[in-house]
């Protein structure tokens, strides 16, 4: 099973993960890392390296909050074809999707990341637009 790492600014990742477990129940093979004010980028990178290496045989997807932010910049350094993928802009529907899909061993890490990102993108709606198109 592909391992999941959630690396964000502050406690966003931890709380987001708790929210996802409220919906789909307890999840294994998930690591939460956080960048706080004063966090050393090198220390976070070392923690990430340890996690990605330990789980090397199964592959990892690192979820980050914002493309261009430190969590994402650090993670991209671990991008490794077939073994480690990075998906930015993490949201709740993305986590739900990855937790349900990752048991499917036929999916490569990259394919899993693509499907997860699509679920995240598709979940963003402006309600007024939907109503406007379909009802009004």
């Amino acid at each position: 099973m592909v391992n999941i790492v959630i690396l964000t600014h502050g406690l966003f990742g931890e709380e987001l993960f708790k929210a996802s477990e409220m919906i789909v129940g307890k999840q294994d093979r998930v690591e939460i890392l956080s960048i706080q004010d004063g966090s050393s980028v090198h220390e976070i990178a070392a923690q990430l390296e340890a996690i990605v290496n330990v789980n090397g045989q199964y592959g990892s997807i690192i979820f980050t909050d914002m493309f261009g932010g430190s969590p994402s910049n650090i993670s991209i350094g671990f991008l490794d074809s077939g073994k480690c993928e990075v998906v930015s802009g993490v949201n709740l529907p993305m986590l739900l999707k990855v937790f349900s899909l990752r048991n499917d061993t036929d999916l490569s890490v990259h394919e899993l990341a693509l499907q997860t990102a699509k679920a995240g993108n598709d979940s963003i709606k402006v309600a007024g637009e939907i109503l406007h198109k379909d009802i009004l």
Partner: protein
Amino acid sequence: MERIIFRVDDRFIHGQVIEGWINHFRIKNIILINDSIADDVKKTFIYKSIMPRNAKLEVMSIDSFLQLDILNEYKKGYLLIIVGSINDLKLINSNIPLEHSYINIGCLATSNHDIPVTDNCFLNQEELDCLVHISEKHSKDIYAHKLPWEKPININDIHNKQMNIKKIQE
């Protein structure tokens, strides 16, 4: 604000730099000076790919920067120059056009450095001395300044505070 924003930040380009500085001042030209990133095609690509639209990033080595004629190459508009450490600042400060530059420190979060400046900037004594030296030599104040809308902290004030602490300890 001076036209050239010269920043020391060990995370180089990240959320605070993009939202706080590049977008706030609508900076179109950014130079990242770091030997190891300049030497690494993948890292260079990553930093270029996170630039906001209309902002152009150049990554260069310390040697390349020292040969750059900044004021002639970048005649108009804001220019953001970023290095990753006080030591790199020391190596290149001879080529900073000081009268046009605002020198500021962002994140420097090396865990064993024990002089707190802001919640994400910690220096050791050697780095503090180096900043004070550059500041005095060029009569130029240097600030720790996380975001442009926050109050900057003058490094000389931190230096004076450290001196007072030492006096009290003696």
